[in-house]
């Protein structure tokens, strides 16, 4: 360690004892937020006004404490939508499906948001499952694939669990989140090379998605489309792979389950 020069002290704090005009004064009955905690909202959906119409976990919420306001007039005037197609409609499934269910009309969204603060920057957070839901949808829609999630692939003595795979067309993908160290280990460079070789040999085509920065929908969609264009030119020829055993519990119908409070999200840098 070297000391070359000494410059003047920049600032001098005023000790609390010298802050004569100010005081620490607890507030006995100060202002209160009207907006609920997340727990209160989940427990009592009526706080939203009319939200008990919703299916899923909110459908079981407490009865409204007071009459709910009517929906906005323009919404009342809206024509009724035709009933949703059933999952058994083969035409609908041919346009792409996820775990045997037809696709929603629009892609599910994932949100990158920030939490924290103080000395360092707040962390960027997102939910890896939401990102995977987006990729499932995009793969299925763009490639007209019947995606099976968490697919166990056995090939050439290698066993892998893929995030999504269509065993009829032998096309799938694996998303490795930047901070998911386990997935990084499972899909290390050797495995990635194997995936490339399988595609080259026209056995299976698996898109490996690993994004150095925050995931964003446009980048992911671009990767998917580029990959699927490549697959179209050289589709896998291996033939139908055996389907994995069905999951222990059937996936819940719509809507997505409400996560517990403070469900773990990934803090990741930009």
């Amino acid at each position, binding site marked *: *360690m070297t*000391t070359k020069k*000494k*410059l*003047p*002290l*920049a*600032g001098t*704090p*005023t000790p*609390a004892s*010298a*802050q004569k005009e*100010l*005081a*620490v*004064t*607890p*507030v006995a*009955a*100060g*202002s*209160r*937020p*009207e*907006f609920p*905690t*997340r*727990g209160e*909202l*989940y427990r009592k959906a009526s706080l*939203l006004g009319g*939200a008990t*119409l919703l299916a*899923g976990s909110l459908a079981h919420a407490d009865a409204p404490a007071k009459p709910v306001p009517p929906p906005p007039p323009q919404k009342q005037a809206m024509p009724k939508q035709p009933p949703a197609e059933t999952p058994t409609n083969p035409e609908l499934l041919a346009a792409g499906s996820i775990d045997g269910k037809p696709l*929603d*009309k*629009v892609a*599910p*969204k994932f949100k990158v948001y*920030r*939490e924290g*603060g*103080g*000395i*360092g*920057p*707040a962390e*960027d957070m997102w939910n890896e499952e939401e990102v995977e839901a987006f990729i499932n949808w995009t793969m299925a829609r763009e490639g007209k694939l019947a995606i099976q999630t968490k697919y166990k692939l056995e090939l050439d003595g290698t066993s892998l669990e893929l995030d999504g795979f269509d065993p009829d067309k032998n096309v799938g993908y694996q998303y490795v989140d*930047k*901070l998911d160290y386990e997935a990084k*280990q499972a899909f290390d460079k050797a495995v990635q090379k194997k995936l490339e070789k399988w595609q080259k040999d026209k056995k299976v085509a698996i898109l490996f998605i690993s994004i*150095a920065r925050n995931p964003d929908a446009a980048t992911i969609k671009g990767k998917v489309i580029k990959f699927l264009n490549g697959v179209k030119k050289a589709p896998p020829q291996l033939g139908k792979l055996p389907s994995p055993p069905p999951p222990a519990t059937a996936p819940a119908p*719509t*809507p*997505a389950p409400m996560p517990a*409070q*403070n469900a773990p999200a990934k803090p990741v*840098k*930009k």
Partner: protein
Amino acid sequence: MNALLHLTHDCNLRCPYCFTGKKFDREMTSDTAKRTAEFVVDYAKQHGQRAVFSFFGGEPMMAWDRLREVVLHAEAVAREQGVVALFRMNTNGMLIKEEHLRFFEEHDLIFILSIDGNEAMHDAERLTEGGKGSHHVLAEKLPRFLEHNPGMMVSVVITPTNVRHAADGLAYLFDQGIRYLIIKPDVTQAWSRDDVAELERQYERVADDYLERTRKGDELYLNLLDDKWINHAKGAEGISIRCDVGSSQISISPSGNIYPCVRWVKEDEATVPKLGDVWQGLLPEPMAKIRAESAAPKQPCGDCSYNDGRCANECACEHYSATGRIDTPAPALCEHERVMVPIADRVGNTLWRERNPVFMQKLYPHVSKLIQIRVNPDDGATP
């Protein structure tokens, strides 16, 4: 492990409110820098954590070669150990050039920029060694910084000297395209009652500005409001913004000494509590002491109705700096929070009543999605 690294005591600015002690040219040696990287990665590995390196003041960019060395060495060591290494930096931005931005891109180093609002506000405090304002330098660089990272976070200090410019100053930052603002009042200065009254006037204007921008759909983060809302929304058991001094945060000085947090480092003359050094590691006794003190209830906040996560009384090193005790907040902090909490409640209540989509998405992300489906059933978005 979030390690705040002080690579040098030197700085190219002389901000009167700076709490990091005298500015002098003492830089971390190469050996110490490498050892620091290894120490932080080892600790993270042992405790199943990420190794977060946050470069802090003096101005880290004045020790650019050393910073680069730490990043490269830490990456190599982290890779070997199977640890995720992340890099952060608090900087005044004055010395950042294109080559540095390229390095930040390559190594995912995020920097948080210290800029105190518009020229009038910034130059009231942030002066060069020669006593000149520094805003014009940053104003020129700001567009490129935002291009580099549109989510760049900015840190602003509010003092009795610059408070009268606060509303205009923060509006300027939002107008430049900055969306993430951390505002810190300097609670170690002598605020008068008039200053506090001015603070309230300014914050009311800041809050109204924020409200209007949010109504227009801007997704902003202003810690003064958002942190209070998030802490309330998460409930007492889920408060995410806590002080992690003595638990997962440490400060490492140029000499390799380890201190509880940034305000303890000062001139690094071992006259303040030390938690160890990068050669011998952390000393269990002072660690346990500081952890216990940090976790202890703040005095005399126990009965305060704002002490439910809305009051920002969590910063141990700020308390220490002002009162000499980490469990006792400064009077100026209490005054600040008594001004800010009702304002945050007012704005939050307004946005809640309006069911503002940005507000709902921030506080209740999953419920928010369902509300949108109910309101607009033909957009096809089912959860």
